[in-house]
């Protein structure tokens, strides 16, 4: 024991790079370093680099030396009517999908806040879509909607005798995308609302019953205040997420028919990897990032308010 301590002491006193590196005060940072390096190379560097690129005229397909063009691409993106079209499409999909998730999630939460046989098993089943990968959900629904042998088409054919291609019309395609997205994320809203519902003390409902309050008044004055902030969180969180919608749309419709379901996310992808307008796509991506940051700050503000209310 004593001799090994002496050896260790010698190594330390003799110095050398390795001994310096392994000194106790450096071990923590050393252990974190690999993760930091990967994070920097894969996330932070590309982020900064693409931000830089958005001020240059550059295409990933060409070997030209990029020239500095300042805010030209930002200007082009903002004045591009196509971009505004895509924003509009995104807004329609986001608002209908989030609304559907809210309504379905809320009703599911009301259902599951009661006790009934098989509740736990049903709850697990209802939560499953949320756990699936986006790509899997996209493929599921692509098969559901498939006009030749898809379930939806066959079900409709039983009544009309004709096959049915939901994704064939612009409106149908939007509905198809919204259904897939709402199917996947309503359980998330349900979880949040359920958490609010179970936090309502039961005695308040009993007091209200003795106080002769109507069911609507009870909801308005007791239930709703308890779930209000959680609903707000659900709306913001789902808006932020749906705003970035890409996978499901890309697999289901690739943005079609025409550009009916081409969300802003799909459009950025096209700009970057189909048209190779790298700088322009970078500029647009940063504008989207800005929008998401604004939404996120709203979200965090709501989270904090909720935390204060709970205190």
């Amino acid at each position, binding site marked *: 024991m004593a001799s090994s301590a002496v050896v260790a002491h010698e190594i330390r006193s003799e110095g050398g790079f390795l001994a310096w590196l392994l000194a106790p005060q450096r071990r923590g940072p050393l252990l974190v370093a690999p993760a930091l390096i990967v994070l920097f190379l894969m996330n932070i560097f590309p982020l900064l680099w693409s931000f830089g690129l958005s001020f240059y005229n550059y295409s990933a397909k060409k070997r030209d030396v990029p020239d500095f063009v300042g805010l030209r691409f930002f200007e082009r993106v903002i004045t591009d009517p196509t971009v505004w079209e895509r924003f509009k499409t995104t807004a329609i999909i986001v608002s209908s999908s989030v609304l559907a998730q809210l309504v379905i999630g809320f009703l599911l939460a009301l259902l599951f806040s009661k006790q009934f046989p098989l509740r736990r098993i049903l709850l697990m089943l209802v939560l499953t879509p949320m756990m699936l990968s986006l790509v899997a959900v996209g493929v599921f629904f692509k098969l559901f909607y498939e006009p030749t042998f898809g379930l939806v088409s066959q079900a409709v054919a039983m009544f009309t005798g004709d096959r049915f291609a939901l994704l064939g019309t612009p409106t149908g395609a939007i509905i198809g995308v919204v259904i897939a997205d709402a199917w996947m994320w309503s359980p998330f809203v349900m979880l949040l609302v359920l958490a609010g519902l179970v936090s309502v003390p039961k005695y308040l409902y009993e007091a209200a019953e003795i*106080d*002769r309050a109507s069911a609507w008044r009870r909801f308005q*004055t007791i239930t709703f205040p308890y779930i209000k902030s959680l609903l707000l969180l659900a709306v913001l969180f789902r808006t932020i997420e749906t705003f970035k919608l890409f996978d499901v749309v890309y697999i289901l419709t690739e943005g079609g028919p025409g550009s009916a379901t081409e969300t802003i996310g799909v459009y950025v992808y096209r700009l970057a990897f189909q048209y190779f307008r790298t700088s322009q796509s970078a500029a647009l991506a940063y504008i989207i990032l800005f929008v998401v940051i604004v939404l996120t700050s709203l979200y965090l503000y709501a989270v904090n308010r909720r935390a204060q209310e709970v205190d």
Partner: protein
Amino acid sequence: MADLIVQDVVKRFGRVTALDGMSFEVREGEFYCLLGPSSAGKTTMLRAISGLEQLDGGRILFGGRDMAAAPIQGRGIAMIFQTFALYPHLTVRGNFTYPLERAGLPAQEIRTRVGEVAELLRVGHTLDRLPSTLSGGEQQRVAIGRALVRRPQLLLLDEPLTNLDAKLRHDTRAEFKRLHRELGMTMLYATPDQLEALTMGQRVGVMQAGRVVQVDTPRNLYAAPQDTYVAGMVGSPAINLVPGRIQRRDGAFAVDLPFGTLPADAWRIHLSGGEPVLFGVRPHDVLLGHHPARGPAFTATVHLTEPLGDVTLLDLDVNGAAMKMALPEERALGIGPGMPIEVTLSAADVHLFHAETGVRIA
């Protein structure tokens, strides 16, 4: 008119029987207390009267009307909960007007009533605040106000003082008595605390395992508990119970106790001799010193003294039997553990119970 009659009420929760043939009557304008330990079924009884629980048997009549069919809203009953159950997202004013919304009263009338209640309970300054910003005592008064604003014929109170500190409990006890006197309303008050029941109730129903076992005025309950259970529930500190046996000597009855013999001739018509009994004496009826006129004296050893301020409790060993006595603080000065003292049992205030059934012999 507002007589409340509870007849043979049964309520089960799964395999647990919460109310097991519960019967009692509350007179109009009476302050009636249900006294019982925490699982005796007090809360279930109040909830059954209010309509929050359906009965499994028996019936509840209020003002001559069977309540089983009456909807909760139509019963003319208000309830104060142990948790206060104030609506946290409504202001005090909102809490007050809540029970009035369905009554279809003109706005002027609602304002008047809220004003009256706020004044009666001295919460006028809090009307625009949320309940969470109020002190415990203020929350309690708002809860009372919300119950009173409807002018109910019957007010149910479910352990309303449990969540208050000792000082506030004392004040609120006085407050309830004042409200009862001023409003003349029928009040049914459930509590596990014998002090609350004895100080406020005009009559007290003592509950045991889902039924009322004795109903009487506080004074009579204290003086003549019908069995050891009631004797133990009523009075603080709790009554001393010492096992003994009845003896017949020269035609006279006496109780043989571990520390001596006590004449029991007063109960002779109920005795045959030889039966084992429980002898009960309240700590306040154990007297210090020798009082030949009051009863026989015994020698005891002091185990422990508990000064409570105005009164000191002594834990005694009377020839092997443990007993407590209560002394005024100034008389307990100079008495310490290990000291032998002489005590007299006040013969007029002792109780005899059957050892097996616990029922009072007289």
